[in-house]
């Protein structure tokens, strides 16, 4: 057992965690931003835009991966533009991991933030306005704290999704050990290579992390409100 552990290359775990953190930060701000914008739209436009923003959640991740490849491929305009002007390479790089994970995690953040915003009493916003508070101050001081539990659980879910992302990541970023091989990609390739011990080890790691995440959500979203029991 000790021998087994000492031979493990831990890089997939660090890459997964690093990707998860960065992707969650991106998804958080983008999700909150989009949720805030969409709350100001009229019902028709809202339904359409909401559908578009939710797509990555309902489509197979490979479809997202395919679209991202189309966008960032070095043989295509946008990909080559990024490389020539900013020296940014997305395909087969860690940046690709982050982008893929962000895209997949985004809808979870966005939908949770939006649901949380919808629960906020609109009179709080009006009260803030009549009191002379600026819109920004109302948003960060009144709405965000009031939507706190929903935002927090959205963030945790987004993080969980980001560290577990496989489909889009493997298509966009590939499977380069020490660079783009995340835990989920490692599980797939170890299994394919017949290394069931190694694959099993990563499976246990992922299960542990996922459980921690779910427990965290329960604790965070349960705080501050009464837990209702059905008896």
């Amino acid at each position: 057992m000790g021998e087994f552990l000492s031979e493990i290359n831990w890089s997939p775990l660090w890459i997964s965690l690093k990707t998860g953190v960065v992707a969650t930060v991106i998804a958080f701000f983008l999700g909150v931003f989009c949720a805030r914008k969409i709350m100001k739209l009229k019902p028709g436009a809202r339904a359409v835009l909401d559908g578009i923003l939710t797509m990555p959640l309902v489509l197979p991740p490979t479809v997202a991966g395919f679209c991202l490849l189309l966008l960032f491929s070095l043989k295509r305009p946008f990909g080559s533009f990024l490389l020539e002007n900013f020296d940014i390479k997305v395909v087969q790089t860690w940046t690709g991991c982050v982008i893929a994970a962000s895209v997949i995690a985004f809808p979870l953040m966005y939908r949770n933030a939006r649901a949380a915003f919808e629960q906020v009493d609109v009179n709080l916003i009006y009260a803030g306005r009549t009191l002379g508070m600026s819109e920004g101050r109302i948003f960060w001081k009144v709405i965000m704290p009031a939507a706190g539990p929903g935002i927090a659980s959205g963030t945790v879910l987004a993080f969980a999704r980001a560290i577990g992302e496989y489909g889009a990541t493997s298509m966009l970023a590939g499977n380069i050990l020490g660079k783009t091989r995340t835990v989920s990609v490692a599980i797939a390739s170890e299994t394919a290579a017949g290394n069931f011990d190694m694959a099993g080890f990563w499976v246990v790691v992922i299960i542990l992390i996922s459980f921690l995440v779910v427990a965290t959500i329960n604790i965070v979203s349960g705080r501050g409100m009464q837990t209702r029991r059905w008896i």
Partner: protein
Amino acid sequence: MAIELDIQKNFKGFSLNVKLKGQNGAMGILGASGSGKSMTLRSIAGIETPDSGKIIINGKTVFDSQAKINLKPQERRVGYLFQNYALFPTMTVEKNIACGYRGNKSELSQKVADYIKRYHLEGLEKHLPSQLSGGQQQRVALARMMIGEPEVILLDEPFSALDGYLKDILQRDMQNFLKDYKGDMIMVTHSRDEAYKFCSQLTLLHNGKEILTGETREIFGNPQYLETAKLTGCKNFSAVQKMGSHELYALDWELLLRTEQEVTEDITHVGIRGHWMRPADAAGENTMEVQVEEYIENTFEHQYLICNKAAKESGTLWWMCQKKNFQETPQENVPKYLYFPPEHVMLLKK
């Protein structure tokens, strides 16, 4: 110091069309649910935007659809007390009140302490709104509104969510706190009692339209219109036929009535408040022989649904009579006749 507004707004199946000219002091807007009174108040605060019209507060135009003026709520210096108080749930009492402050930052903490004292909230500075009683919440909301020194304050049904005892206490508190306020106040309510208590001037709304504006006492004494009489709580109405300059025949009660006011051609209805009818011993002018249809016992008064015994098909009237004690049943002491004092007979137009 005055508020002037003339606004229109159309919704599906409902249109708001209100003209108002408020004088100094406390003004009330009385109307049934769905009459557009909250919408009017929200338009003044700038939370709602009318389709067209004009709103002027103390000589400053805050909304004018033609001149394309529409000041943000932040720029109107209008205080708004929400029905549920809309306290910020994640902020302490202290922080809530600080949100309303608009002046110099260096005086903030001093001012907040000042208002906490003034509204009797000492010791609650670090509490969250959810830890406060209804009365304390209302005081926080008042303090938060008043610390910004608004030119006008708007109260949106401030007592309708409260029950009996607390309501009476809070009404008295509010009257005390508002005593020192120099600006104007507009209160929206569907309760005639609150309107009567708080407002020297009243505007009555019905179906999105203003029907009558005037001194509160005068409106209660002489509501002029059938709808306004209903809004002020009158329950007894009858269609009329004019008989003379001070005489009419109440068709639904089959009763001839002498009136103090002159009966003009446009009078279509007559009304009388159940509290003003008096028992009488004998038949005579403006009296009706009583036949009780139903007894309703209230806490402090008996209510009778009565009709005219002498009539063939009389409509019913409500008559209210103070109780002397809780043992007394409504069936005791029912008078044979009821007298309709001419000075209380209200002449109404449609």
